[in-house]
């Protein structure tokens, strides 16, 4: 077979996993392009650089020589245009490049809802390395920061600033932290935990506008309730959306993201899309059409590599799982755990008297088959939870054998009691 030129735009977890697995499977030429950085780095670890817990070199998952050794060419440049008919890319520096197979893994961009003042200096989201640099620059010696939007990136930003001893006011529109994902008890627990870290958390509070000083630098935010909170830095963390700027107004079909079938194929031949930027035309039952997490990007990367190398493989991600850390509180989830009580399923919630650990088991009301877990401040064993959910293990069995799922360090008493 002739050697194809496989070009991947985006060197995040999705694009890089695709590249690595294509290399394992076939001998084609692989080029990975990114405007953001020379090498792949872990986006999930950006916060730790600001916190001084790691340096940039530490968050690169592979040594620099890995790429040459595996014959993956890297190009640090911005793709300005794609000509899908001619199979040709042009870069912002004017150069061009041809491809046989194109894989789009362009990731996300931070949401900005057209708030008045959102473009002032000292106002930003947190997604890229460049965002991290500006955050470093604009938070030097400031007296207060305000964060707008209570998701995972918002709470990370709050933690980052707190470790620099910068007082933080955290505006969250919902009446409970992340309560569109977390059930009430979990949400309350995190809310308490955030406050115990002395973050000025304001629930049910929305941003109206940001005001600036003469120099065009943020000086205060005004809430919809009319309160003015003086600050010198504003973090906008109200979610992300697929970054599809590059392919808007091209024959490539898009909606909110780049539309793909279950094989991650777009409507153009030999063009694939995956990770944060992809939108599934027919998502698997119970899954969202756009999944913007690390793990799904990785799974899609493995899948697309198989398809591209001649073994068409549908993206069937299996049982959902995810994890996060809210300041010092770890969170893991497996399977389906609805935020609001849902017809047909029930759940058991256990909470430690210390208020810092909790475990929820969701099960089918009729059959008592276990459907999902939420673990707060407790580590559960992925393989065991996955198997229980997959097999529809009976609630009583699961409770009886719960210790099998204990993944906490040795000498940690397994405290969960139902």
């Amino acid at each position, binding site marked *: 077979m002739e050697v194809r030129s496989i070009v991947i735009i985006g060197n995040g977890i999705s694009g890089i996993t695709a590249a690595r697995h294509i290399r394992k499977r076939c001998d084609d030429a692989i080029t990975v392009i990114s405007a953001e950085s020379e090498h792949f780095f*872990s986006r999930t670890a950006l916060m730790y650089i600001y916190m001084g817990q790691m340096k940039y070199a530490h968050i690169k998952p592979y040594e620099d020589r890995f790429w040459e050794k595996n014959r993956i060419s890297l190009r640090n440049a911005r793709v300005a245009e794609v000509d899908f008919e001619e199979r040709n890319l042009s870069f912002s520096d004017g150069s061009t490049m041809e491809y046989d197979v194109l894989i789009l893994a362009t990731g996300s961009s931070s949401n900005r809802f057209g708030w008045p003042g959102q473009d002032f200096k000292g106002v930003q989201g947190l997604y890229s390395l460049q965002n991290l640099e500006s955050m470093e620059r604009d938070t030097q010696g400031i007296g207060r920061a305000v964060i707008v939007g209570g998701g995972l990136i918002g709470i990370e930003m709050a933690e980052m600033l707190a*470790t620099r*001893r910068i007082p933080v006011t955290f505006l969250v529109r919902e009446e409970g932290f992340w309560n569109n994902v977390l059930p009430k008890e979990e949400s309350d627990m995190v809310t308490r935990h955030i406050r115990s870290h*002395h973050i000025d958390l304001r629930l049910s509070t929305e941003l109206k506008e940001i005001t600036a000083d003469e120099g065009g630098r943020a000086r205060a935010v005004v809430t919809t309730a009319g309160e003015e909170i003086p600050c010198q830095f504003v973090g906008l963390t109200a979610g992300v959306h697929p970054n599809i700027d590059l392919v808007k107004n091209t024959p490539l079909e898009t909606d909110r993201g780049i539309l793909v079938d279950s094989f991650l194929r777009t409507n153009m031949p030999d063009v694939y899309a995956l990770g944060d930027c992809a939108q599934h035309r027919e998502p698997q039952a119970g899954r969202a059409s756009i999944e913007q997490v690390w793990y799904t990007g990785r799974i899609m990367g493995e899948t697309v590599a198989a398809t591209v190398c001649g073994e068409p493989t549908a993206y069937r991600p299996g049982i959902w799982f995810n994890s996060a850390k809210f*300041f010092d509180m770890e969170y893991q989830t497996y399977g389906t755990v609805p935020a609001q009580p849902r017809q047909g399923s029930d759940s058991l919630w256990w909470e430690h008297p210390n208020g810092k650990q909790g475990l929820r088991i969701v099960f089918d009301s009729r059959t008592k088959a276990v459907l999902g877990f939420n673990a707060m401040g407790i580590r559960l064993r992925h393989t065991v939870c996955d198997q229980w959910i997959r097999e529809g293990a009976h609630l009583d069995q699961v409770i009886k054998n719960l210790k099998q799922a204990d993944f906490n*360090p040795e000498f*940690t008493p397994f405290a969960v009691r139902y």
Partner: protein
Amino acid sequence: MTHSLVNPYPAGQDAVQRIALGAFAIGLLALVIAAFGPGEEFPQLFFWLAVVLGPTGGAVYAVRNFLHRPAGVRNEQVWHRSLFNRGMVAWVFGIVLTGFYIALYWGPDSYWGSAALVRVFDPLSNLLTGSPADRWFLYGAVYTMAVLVMGLRAIAKYRHSNYQVVRTGSIMFFQLGFAFLIPQFLKAMDRPEFYFSYFWPLKPDYLWPEGGYYSFQWILDKGGLGLWMLLFAGVMTFIATPVLTYFFGKRWYCSWVCGCGGLANTAGDPFRQLSDKSLKAWKVERWMIHSVLLIIIAITLLLWVNSFLGGSILGNLSHTLSKLYAFIIIQAFSGVIGVGFYPLLGTRVWCRFGCPMAAYLGILQKYFSRFRITTNGGQCISCGNCSTYCEMGIDVKAYAQRGENIVRASCVGCGICATVCPRGVLKLENGPTHRDREVGNPIVFGNDGFRLRP
């Protein structure tokens, strides 16, 4: 405004901390002043200032520093500070430490014999042994104090992890009891100054017929107790070590008992992130550490053959050989480089590149042990915290992000990788058998969740 506006990570220190820090500074100053003469004249005074007040102040300060902040991984700002990021302060500290070791090992007897600094430790030495201190007593006392003071700090820092608390308690216990008090008492009773927490090949002379300071013959000469000691040394090396390592991995020794590991995990804890994680360092490590083990085995065999043949092969050379070993390996490597370079190379340089016991334990751990670090399915986000804070320079995330167990000869089972992982991915475990430890874990694959690695 509500309490929530009070800053959680206070910039300044409270009164207790300031007083404690002051006490520590006075202790340090007293030590320096004492060394220039006054220590000889007023040993009691300087003992109380330098040996009691100073370390107590240090402990209170360090512990409070962490108790002030919420329990959890508190590694923030580590790389922003000169001392922990190979900055100027680190170099100065490294040079001072190295200088101390050079003076200690190779300083002339004429200096140490009459050193005022040593006199400061007389009250303690008199209490424990009934005789005045010498430089080795001073070293043992300072070392033990460092493990105790910084051990308390480590317990405060890692108080959210029972594994770290229990383990740190264990290394403090063994350092104080087995590596300091018991040998001192034995010496006081004119018994061999025997360290029940060190064995061949880390203390090779315990099983040497002659030559070493603590050689077989020397211990035997001390009568019945000596015989028991030798029996103990033999059993520890050849029976207890393989058995314990089979069940628990090398950590039972390196992270729970050994004083070198003890110092690294207490006094050295702030420097653990400086270890070299590159593949190249791993290569160098394997060559060096196994060479040291081979050299010790060779010397030991040679000495015994020589002894059986009545000294006919080596003659007096055996003495020179063991002296040379002590000079290069024990003093230069484990002391000067191993500890003196903490602020520059990280903590476990000796354990990783030089220690023959670690080599022996590592071979056992790699090929015949139930111990492994398990990876939690697909939860790794490749953040790099585990690798950054592994003092042995193991690239833990390289395994974790592939869903593989970590089975490495060098892993000392300190458990810090599992402690700092923000996603609960790692767990130190003793499995039911040694056979399943390197079997690839199921990793997450696109085609319907878990699939066993080929």
